[in-house]
């Protein structure tokens, strides 16, 4: 077997050194009745590199790759061009096959990268401190809710969710809250041109630990975070802002700047790619340094070595499970290190100038696409405001239209019926995302196809 270096001669020499008659003697602690005699039945035997590649390629070909379609999906996962050097760097063995940097003297590469990543995320979010990543946006969102509970010392048990929070994020929060007995005050989203900020503010009371608002929201609209932050703070609640498209923050004000206390999000759009939903990159930051010790996850900090040289270490680990066990701020251990590297390399390549250009190009193309699609009879653009994703209202069930269009190699967007199953009032909604990878031809293809199916 190509991954196993021991020869049969090695094996017998080693058994002799150990003083064991055969390999089974080393499994003597396994009760006889639990030991399997031969390879597990019904499973195939080993296969060559060529054979495995062939099998996997066959499965890969059964999927319609985004690059082979006119592609408009978003809703928490965005397709951007990732420069070739990003993938080259994350495949360097010294990054790819390194362990968590618990031995800082031989892990400065990962640690310095994490320190740079934390700084990039903190600045993008308008926050003081970001951690070294979480699993993904949805779990980062729940961790933020849990942290708000700790800040409130368990005295406030109500969590107010915006109706326009990504429904899967809301579902993760609801799932976890069942076990912590927090009261989750959700609401169905309403198909209005502007987010219902007033309705959200009205639901905040003295018992509210946090308010969770997506920015831009699931329908692509921009809520007035500043107003919501002021209202939350007035009642002693924290504002958690959720961002699922980091490129947007090259064009719009940062959540921290607008008063959000905890900012979390999905970092997949930069460097990571679509990957059918994972691995992704959870981003987590706090606006005020005073909340650092309440944060979940790993933090990388600056220090010096015995000779006085600058170096980096994982720090404040007394919050973490491997030290604090049942008193830890979270049970998280492994996070998304390599995805953080991909994000950081992509962000470094862009720089401020590149990020702003990328953001403005996305917005320009999205505005053009919205204008073109609005001309299709039977199509209305819902949004007053948006960045690179907006909601169309179709005269017809969006979900079945999306399915029909796949036959023409058009991935038309995410229907609200798919996102909010069972909510009939949303059935005509279609979320359309446009990035720098979307061509005018793609938009024209979608527009003419919609003209045909809605005619």
């Amino acid at each position, binding site marked *: 077997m190509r991954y196993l270096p021991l020869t049969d001669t090695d094996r017998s020499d080693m058994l002799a050194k150990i003083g064991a008659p055969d390999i089974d003697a080393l499994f003597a602690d396994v009760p006889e009745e639990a030991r399997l005699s031969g390879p597990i039945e019904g499973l195939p035997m080993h296969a060559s590199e060529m054979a495995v590649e062939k099998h996997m390629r066959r499965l890969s070909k059964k999927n319609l790759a985004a*690059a082979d379609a006119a592609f408009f999906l978003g809703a928490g996962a965005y397709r951007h061009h990732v420069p070739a050097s990003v993938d080259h760097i994350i495949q360097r063995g010294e990054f790819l096959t*390194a362990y968590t940097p618990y031995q800082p003297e031989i892990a*400065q*590469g990962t640690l310095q990268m994490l320190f740079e990543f934390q700084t990039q995320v903190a600045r993008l979010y308008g926050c003081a401190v970001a951690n070294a990543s979480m699993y993904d946006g949805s779990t980062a969102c729940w961790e933020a809710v849990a942290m708000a509970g700790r800040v409130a010392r368990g005295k406030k048990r109500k969590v107010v969710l915006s109706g326009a929070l990504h429904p899967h994020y809301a579902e993760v929060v609801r799932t976890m809250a069942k076990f912590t007995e927090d009261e989750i005050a959700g609401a169905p989203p309403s198909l209005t041109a502007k987010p219902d900020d007033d309705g959200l503010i009205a639901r905040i009371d003295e018992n509210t630990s946090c308010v969770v608002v997506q920015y831009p929201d699931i329908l692509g609209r921009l809520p007035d975070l500043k107003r919501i932050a002021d209202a939350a703070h007035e009642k002693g609640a924290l504002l958690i802002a959720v961002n699922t498209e980091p490129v947007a923050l090259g064009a*719009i004000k940062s959540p921290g700047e607008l008063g959000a206390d905890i900012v979390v999000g999905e970092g997949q759009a930069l460097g990571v790619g679509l990957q059918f939903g994972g691995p*992704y990159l959870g981003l987590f930051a706090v606006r005020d340094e005073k909340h650092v010790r309440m944060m979940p996850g790993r933090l990388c900090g600056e220090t010096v070595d015995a000779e006085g040289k600058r170096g980096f270490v994982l720090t404040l680990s007394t919050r973490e499970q491997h030290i604090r066990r049942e008193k830890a701020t979270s049970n998280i251990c492994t996070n998304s290190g390599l995805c953080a590297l991909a994000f950081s390399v992509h962000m470094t390549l862009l720089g401020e100038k*590149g990020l702003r250009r990328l953001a403005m190009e996305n917005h320009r193309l999205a505005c053009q696409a919205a204008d073109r699609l609005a001309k299709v009879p039977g199509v209305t653009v819902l949004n007053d405001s948006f960045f690179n994703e907006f909601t169309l209202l179709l005269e017809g069930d969006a979900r079945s239209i999306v399915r029909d269009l796949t036959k023409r190699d058009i991935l038309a967007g995410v229907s609200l019926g798919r996102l909010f199953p069972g909510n009939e009032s949303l059935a005509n909604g279609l979320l359309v995302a446009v990035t720098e990878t979307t061509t005018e031809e793609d938009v024209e293809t979608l527009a003419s196809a919609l003209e045909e199916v809605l005619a």
Partner: protein
Amino acid sequence: MNAPNASGWKPGTPVEGHNAMSGPDTATGNRALMLEEPLLFEIGHAETTGVDLPEPQGGANRLGGFDRKAAIGLPGLSEPETVRHYTRLSRQNYAIDLGLFPLGSCTMKHNPRLNEKIARMPGFADVHPLQPVDTVRGALEVINELAFWLIDLTGMYGVAMSPKAGAHGELCGILCIRAALEARGDAREVILVPESAHGTNPATAAFAGYKVEDIPATPEGRVDLEALKARLGPDVAGVMITNPNTCGLFERDMKAISDAVHEAGGFVYCDGANFNAIVGKVRPGDLGVDAMHINLHKTFSTPHGGGGPGSGPVVLSEALAPYGPLPFTARDRDGVVHLVEEENAAEFEHTKAFGRMTAFHGQMGMFTRALAYILSHGADGLKQVAEDAVLNANYVLRSLDDVLDAPFGPSGPCMHEALFSDKGFADGLTTLDLAKALIDEGYHPMTMYFPLVVHGAMLVEPTETESKAALDQFIMALRSVAERAKAGDASLRTAPHYAPRRRLDETQAARKPVLAWNDPDMT
């Protein structure tokens, strides 16, 4: 003809009198190939970019008045500078690609490059999680095929694929237990966890709202069955047991433990971090386990990536499977694989799901790699994986137990990892000193001070992907530093001497945390 190497020196041996680094200071502080690299924020500029994008063209603006005006503070680098920055950083890392990585319980084994190639196939890497299912049947088949292998290899009933890492899988398993208990109206408050457990176990149980109590261990390093039985009762929701455990020992009484827990109305969670020691040899389902997460980055060799991403599918017993989270995949009678989500769960008779762990369907990029690894090994190769992992660990144990104290060595063989203590070290020298001296020898240290049940613990897991020659070299190095620790060699206290950094001041890092770069002109 002169012999080019008259001294007889060969790699892997010292050169008498020339072993220490010596020489003049350099102007740059670099040492030839050891290159220092400034922070991105010290070398980058807001005006530099390594991506060609059009200038903003004006025109429509529908940002609702939220236009960003203030500078963000993100320096950029051109492409050549970017590649060099990260390449230089990478060279300050130890990695499996560089050498043996003996981290007990962490299973740092070779990462096959075929798996990287496969994960990047466009049909896997360039598909969106919310595409209509008819356009992603192949991706769903990958998930389902991997699920099938995991169920078969563990002898379990079902599997939840969505958890994003081991600790997330633990949470999933404990939430299944909680849901199953609540479904029978049986509120229980306590989860029992042995002291030798990974820190994630008690943290997980607490996160899910349970009180955590210790299970006592025997002097042999295993769960004390009688003490456990005495503690079981109507308040105990379940136990969390690592098998093989973190002392590197198989829990011989696992079946009896499971039977006792079940009889008391509780459930058995098994931490599957060490499944690589028994894969293909033992099925946890045969031992009465109700839930077990599998770290794909350990047993099935998806790359650790300097701290993730991981992936933690949880195999479930028949009693717990109905409560597993959404979404998951299921194959129908016609062989078509479906994605089961909130709206179609009833069609697949899965109405008791406890909820959703994450936004999408799990770590697809890890599934493709793990499946490629499993298919490469096959049922026969996976058995060989476990056998070679155990053989290598026992070889290390028996090659060093004359110089290092092996607290559980006398009681018999270990599984995939060998545990040593600091007994016999000279006064003032610690496990940490030995570990740092191992860095100078060109190795990543073993797991230190874990498990907590052994003083100055050193947990060595060589894995199955090391050759005998590599093990012999490592054993020689570890023997040398162990002898120095016993002899009281004070130079250990200041090790490492040859790494990119000397020992770092972790106390200062925690006392005055600096967690982001502050530009000098901004402060």
